[in-house]
């Protein structure tokens, strides 16, 4: 659990030492069980991630009743697929259309819908994204290679409370008749934050 591959610079060594000191103290005091720490890491490294959200989006694309439920009570609709818990206690799904594009940010910290997207990527937590997403989202999107029509309205959701947002991207053209798992493979993490679009079948 403490392998040190690929991280040889001095700063990383100092951080590794600092974290080990804290974990050792807490373990010796009986305040933390390292196996419980391992179980938490395993959950978010291997079990809970953006494929969960992709399954939600694919279901919404193929099942109008589910899409309606997702719009009205996202927490319950998402829980019906088995995804719930920490940092997803109060979910809202927002749907992209040709007229309006949704983007999610947390300017004050790093609030993010863990049960459907897993842990946030580094950029989501960076001052650069948090500062600019609420002011110049088109410039931010350009850094993700995304360009929207000038007339498309942009709606940014700053997660300042415990409401967590999942963006449902537009279903790409040319996907009629595709299976739910095949559709889910088109749904990128970034598209569910609003910083990307769902892939076309050719690009996937």
């Amino acid at each position: 659990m403490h392998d040190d591959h690929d991280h040889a610079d001095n700063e990383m060594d100092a951080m590794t030492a600092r974290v080990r000191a804290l974990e050792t103290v807490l373990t010796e005091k009986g305040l933390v069980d390292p196996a419980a720490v391992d179980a938490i890491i395993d959950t978010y490294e291997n079990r809970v991630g953006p494929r969960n959200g992709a399954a939600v989006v694919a279901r919404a694309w193929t099942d109008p009743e589910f899409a309606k439920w997702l719009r009205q009570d996202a927490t319950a609709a998402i829980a019906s697929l088995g995804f719930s818990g920490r940092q997803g206690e109060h979910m809202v799904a927002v749907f992209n259309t040709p007229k309006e594009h949704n983007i999610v940010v947390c300017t004050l910290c790093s609030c993010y819908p863990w049960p459907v997207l897993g842990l946030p990527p580094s950029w989501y937590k960076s001052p650069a994204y948090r500062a600019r997403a609420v002011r110049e989202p088109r410039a931010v999107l350009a850094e993700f290679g995304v360009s929207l029509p000038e007339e498309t309205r942009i709606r940014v959701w700053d997660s300042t409370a415990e409401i967590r947002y999942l963006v449902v991207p537009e279903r790409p053209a040319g996907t009629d008749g595709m299976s739910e798992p095949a559709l889910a493979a088109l749904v990128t993490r970034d598209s569910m934050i609003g910083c990307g679009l769902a892939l076309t079948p050719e690009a996937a």
Partner: protein
Amino acid sequence: MNGPQDVGGRHGVGAVVPEDEAVRFHADWEKRVLGLTLACGALGHWTLDTSRHARESLPPAVYYNASYYEIWLRALEHLLEAAQEIKPDELTNGHAIHPPRRPDRRLTTEAVPDVLARGGPTERTGPKPAFAIGERVRTRNHQPAGHTRLPGYARGAAGVVEAVHGAHVFPDTNAHGDGEHPQPLYTIRFEATELYGDGADPTLSVSIEAWESYLERA
């Protein structure tokens, strides 16, 4: 607080660097910080709001020079010291010296799935909402020295109530151990021109969640 965390709308912060979604961590110590932070939360010494306040209370120069997991680590050290579970001499030595306070609350491996699945819902029974969907409101010039979730860029701004979420735990008090005091919570939508003035993107609107005491009628 007008701390380093309140970066919405700032200029000069540089580019956003996209990252492959398969990347979960950048170093093994980051994994341990995640696990330790969640495991120590189970000791029950602090709330989510308290931990956010510990992070934003780091000196700005430290905050901006740290990765997010380093911010978490530094805040966790502060929280554990404030809870008198650890002392600085122990971190220096890398070994326990003083007795713990709540080893009986240690998170067990078996409890991890339940704790993560339960999460920490913040909706409570509380006062009925004073504002209705569609109503025009203005955020107050609310800038306490302690914790708040009203971002600076959205202070004193007029917007529209877009959603009412029931009553939620009030972070401004809960972060300081002063109780949950649930208040109605709203989604308030602002036009970018209201927030940023001339030169703002006319196609952009931004929303925040705001507790009722952050708001007044416009």
